[in-house]
């Protein structure tokens, strides 16, 4: 299962933090810093997977943003790696060429996108079409 999802920029600023298990606020901050230190030192020759505490981080870098998913050690690496990409493509569609600022100014909407695609630490919906249709419908509502 997914333990948390983080979107961070290179400088370590968090653009999204979604937690699927309970952590104290201090612990969350520590996790954020550790993950940042872990993924930013890796380059293209490295895998997109890195063991982390008793879990593993599956991550992918898009321009200046790192999308990180923390999952259980036994989980399917490639499935989550593509889940990240699927999520990014939805964001890209939804925000018309998404950039970091979109995530800043529309943080409350990003949470909606996440909840459509992931829930309770599991993949909820994988069809970009259906997610986008739903999101557009919601946006049209007052």
């Amino acid at each position, binding site marked *: 299962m997914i333990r948390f999802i983080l979107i961070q920029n290179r400088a370590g600023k968090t653009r999204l933090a979604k937690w699927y298990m309970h952590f104290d606020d201090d612990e969350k901050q520590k996790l954020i810093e550790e993950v940042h230190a872990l993924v930013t030192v890796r380059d293209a020759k490295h895998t997109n997977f890195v063991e982390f505490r008793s879990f593993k981080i599956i991550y992918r870098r898009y321009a200046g943003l790192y999308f990180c998913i923390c999952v259980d050690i036994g*989980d*399917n690496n490639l499935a989550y790696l593509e889940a990240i990409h699927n999520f990014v493509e939805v964001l890209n569609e939804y925000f018309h060429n998404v950039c970091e600022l979109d995530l800043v100014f529309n943080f409350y909407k990003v949470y*909606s996108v996440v909840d459509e695609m992931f*829930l309770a630490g599991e993949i909820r*919906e994988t069809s970009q079409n259906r997610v986008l249709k739903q999101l557009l419908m919601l946006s049209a509502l007052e």
Partner: protein
Amino acid sequence: MPTVRGDGMRGLAVFISDIRNCKSKEAEIKRINKELANIRSKFKGDKTLDGYQKKKYVCKLLFIFLLGHDIDFGHMEAVNLLSSNKYSEKQVGYLFISVLISADSELMRLIIQSIKTDLSSRNPIFVNLALQCIANIGSKEMAEAFQQDIPRLLVSGDAIDLVKQSAALCLLRLLRAAPEVAPSGEWTSRIIHLLNDQNMGVVTASISFLDALVKRNPSEYKACVSLAVSRLHRIVQSPYNDLQDYTYYFVPAPWLSVKLLRLLENYPPSEDPSVRSKLNECLDQILNKAQEPPKSKKVQHSNAKNAVLFEAISLIIHMDVEPALLIRACNQLGQFLQHRETNMRYLALESMCLLATSEISHDAVKKHQETVINALKTERDVSVRQRAIDLLYAMCDKSNAEEIVQEMLTYLESADYSIREEMVLKIAILAEKYASDYSWYVDVILNLIRIAGDYVSEEVWYRVIQIVINRDDVQGYAAKTVFEALQAPACHENMVKVGGYILGEFGNLIAGDQRSSSQVQFELLYSKYPLCSVGTRCLLLSSFMKFINLFPEIKNIIQDILRNDTNLRSADAELQQRAVEYLQLSKIASADILATVLEEMPAFPERESGILAKLKKQKELPDSSDTPKEQKHLPQAIVNSESVSTPERNGGGGIGMSQGGSMDLLGLNSPVADGLPSSMGGYSQHQSQPQSASSSLFDVFDSPTPQSHGPPAHQNGGSGGVQLVSEANAKKFLFRTSGIIFENEVIQIGVKSQFSPPQAVGQVELYYGNKSTAPLSNFNVQIRNSEAESLLTQLSEIGPVVQISAQVKQVVSTKCMAPFSAQPHARISFTLGNFPTNIDLLIPVYINKFLEGAAMNGETFFARWKKLSLPTQEAQEQFFAKHPIDAAATREKLTQFGFAVLPNVDPNPENFVAAGIVYTASLQIGCLLRLEPRRDDAKYRLTLRTSNELVSKSLATLLKDEF
């Protein structure tokens, strides 16, 4: 400013821009405080805030919170938003609550009420928002409030797909929060049939819930196997464009396929042949697709395809019954080992590690040995190299062990520091497990020390010593090899330890050669001595001591070394003590005694390797998860499940720490466990008889007297109560020096004591033997002594664990300062399993232990007897005979007690008179005794006269009822 779609909140965007424009942290805080004041006044003062404004302010508060600031108001306004009729307002309200409100908030009741309202709303969007909120918070309280309502939403015919998806995952979250409230009975089959749902999104979501239920109760949900196989079959067989929305880069429903395959991994291979062949068809097809030319060059295509492939391979390994599939999987992974993407090589190594554990595919995996070794040399990512090591470890067997171990040794020289220790352990295990020739094994371990001495843990070098001691065919070779290794100008200290130990035991085997004569060996070891740590020096002193026995011709040189001020007067107590005691031993003991004391170590008991235990421990990672972690096969699992236990050789784990005397010379950290005389408590260096260096060989309990047992055991109740050892049981030690003082199913406590009355000192050795089937942990002993000023006691240190079947020795050193009447108690506490146990043990140190017989003639006796005529000097007891009145037995008892029985002194030949002296540090107390048996009424009259009231009384009390 970026394009904000739909209803942007202008005020929010402005605020965020302001924050972003702040040049400093201070400016940001100032801006935030201004905003907080503004919002607070709006919330307080203006009652006419409309929904939009509330939403905007709540959203700002949320933003401030996400920046890392505390928010202490606005919660109520957020809860109010939940009852809004507008989606966007409700959404912000729910978001604020999921992010910011803790499960124990007092607002939770209100929130639950709002959620209830939304759940029963006819607007599916509101229902969905409520479900998502429950899934995000997932508290126990919510589980109780909603677990009944939500299953209906999941299976109802009217519910729309969107709601079903959320309901399924919401239930999963609640199941994790409150596992006791799982749906059952009528729901089972309806939940299973969600696998047939037309909507693949519903299947994707609900299969995660199903998977959790299956893990809890596989048999109840067994029917899901055939449905899952059918569903998988339909997906795998469908042309890539058939599934439309669910095709991802030409791969049909990759995530759903992965979830279906994982669901099947919860079960053994199906017994239904049609299900099984259908599944095999799917797996075959997935393997076939891997060989087809890619439909897209994009990495997304190959990733999605391979996600399914790896999961299929994982299932094939899990089933472990289809040789054809296993071999195909192996070949496929073999191709991936050379893949241009690092991800693929990494995953192939990881997967292959599991394949290597299957008997069917083990040999097929071995074909890739070259490639894997190559990966070790060329991969840039350390985690990939780590996987290569795991795989080499997993594929190793007798046929390739030498080569693999050699490659790993080579790599070790340049390996990353982070993985060196683990590598050392793995190499040591492989070398031992697959050694057909133990000289090879010895070479490997010495190489390990040479290459990565700092990473060679105690377990590893203990183990090589154990094996050398247990196998006499390798001892000569080992001695020769360590001798050569020690020639190097710079030797790792671990090498000195191993070398010192082995030469101390087996140096004689190579002493025939002039180039490694006794003197050469000694000088070689001694050349390392000054640079070593104290622990190693202690070990070397023991080795030198052993040399005295092996090579009498260099005894003088060694005595000189012991006499050297740096040893004999070392600032380190342990070192000094060893030097003093060894020197003394070498002077006093005859060659025969030395030969016994310093004889070769006995073979170690066969046990699981301590190295393996260490490797397992390294792999145990703390897991803070709130849900049971899914255990899938991991490379690590191989490490855990394997054992190097081969029946003939399996030395003890944790040697030297807990096996009493059997590891004497290695017991550097627990000096008392050292069998050589030590720990005399600091006040006296007196020794009467040196014990055997291998004291465990000579069983203290092997006394001819019948063993008596402690009170019946009732300790396993875990009450933590104290068990008392009966006084009566302890009193037998009035007349003897060794025996069992306490015993139950868990522990046996033996006593062996030695007193030296003229010096007023003595020591009691307590032997704790673990009889149970688990280690006794948190083992702790404390002394309670009500007369601590009269009787000094000092307890030696012992380790916190008594291993299974091990015996740990603890020494209580005592010194009698003044007469005493009460005995010290040892409070022994330990934990077995989770049960704490306490034992209150009387330590049998009685005043008579400091009593020594004094012979005198009748005249002297009666002269002294008359002098001691004050009432306070005499103590008298009358008691019934406990045993048949037997003069010989009585005389024997009095003698054992410490008196000198004076024959022909008393005019009545039936009576006994005896004399002795009680020694304390400050004074000597003359003691006279008269014991008058009266055969007619089977009674005794006992009279004690001493110059000290307490001594008279104590001795009389102790002897009362003993005849």
